């Protein structure tokens, strides 16, 4: 595309070089990767947060077994 080829003439420095969102190919690619990374981190955070401690797990298991016997 002409737009992407002519981006080379624009000298972006600093963070704008890597995150010039939605105009350069590199900027767009980095933004996409950042969003995917962000989603992966969020999923990981919620997965780890929902893990219960062993003591709580044991108590809940005991309650479940007692309900089953009764």
């Amino acid at each position, binding site marked *: *595309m002409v*737009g*992407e080829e002519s981006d080379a003439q624009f000298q972006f420095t600093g963070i704008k070089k890597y995150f010039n*969102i*939605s*105009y350069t*190919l*590199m900027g*767009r*690619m980095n*933004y*996409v*990767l950042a*969003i*995917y990374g*962000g*989603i992966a981190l969020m999923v990981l955070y919620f997965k780890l947060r929902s893990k219960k401690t062993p003591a709580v797990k044991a108590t809940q298991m005991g309650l479940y077994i007692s309900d089953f016997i009764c």
Partner: protein
Amino acid sequence: MNENLFASFITPTLMGLPVIILIVAMPNIFIPSSNRLLTNRVLTLQRWLIQLILKQMMAMHNNKGRSWSLMLISLIIFIGSTNLLGLSPHTFTPTTQLSMNLGMAIPLWAGAVILGFRHKTKSSLAHFLPQGTPVPLIPMLIIIETISLFIQPMALAVRLTANITAGHLLIHLIGGATLALLSISVPTALVTLIILILLTILEFAVALIQAYVFTLLVSLYLHDNA
């Protein structure tokens, strides 16, 4: 009546053995081939048709995309001939089975996407974010573009299945209605018969158009990635 309506979509078996492989291989019998330079009329016509489709479909591709020409031509001829043969009475049409269409759509789409990610990684990833998108919309748009990418093979398969199945069902229904109306009211039965004839002509067109649409979309996915 209800059972008969869906009976034509059941995969046929012969003495307990599936004949689906024979049915899928059958259109090949109607497509002759020859190693001669100057062929007979049928083969010349076939060659002309293939060249017509090739010129129209592969003109936009680069050399790498054109290496898929044989695959795409085989695909359009297979789907077109299978759909047309299925319009004969009491025949089984393999393209009414979603499993078969998914089996065609997913590998072709995945091949094109993997090709794009392998050879043009930056461009393929940047594709998820259209140029000039406003900043607040970016995260949502990337998610939407990702979902739309994964929906492509599903849409490809379901489109073909639904079109062919719906057409066959309609022919069954209207044909049954025509027969039923024959003993009740002959003029109404005649009107229904005319509708049936028009529908059959439409189904012939749909059979060819769906083959073209399937192949064209695969070609477009390839063009985006090759």
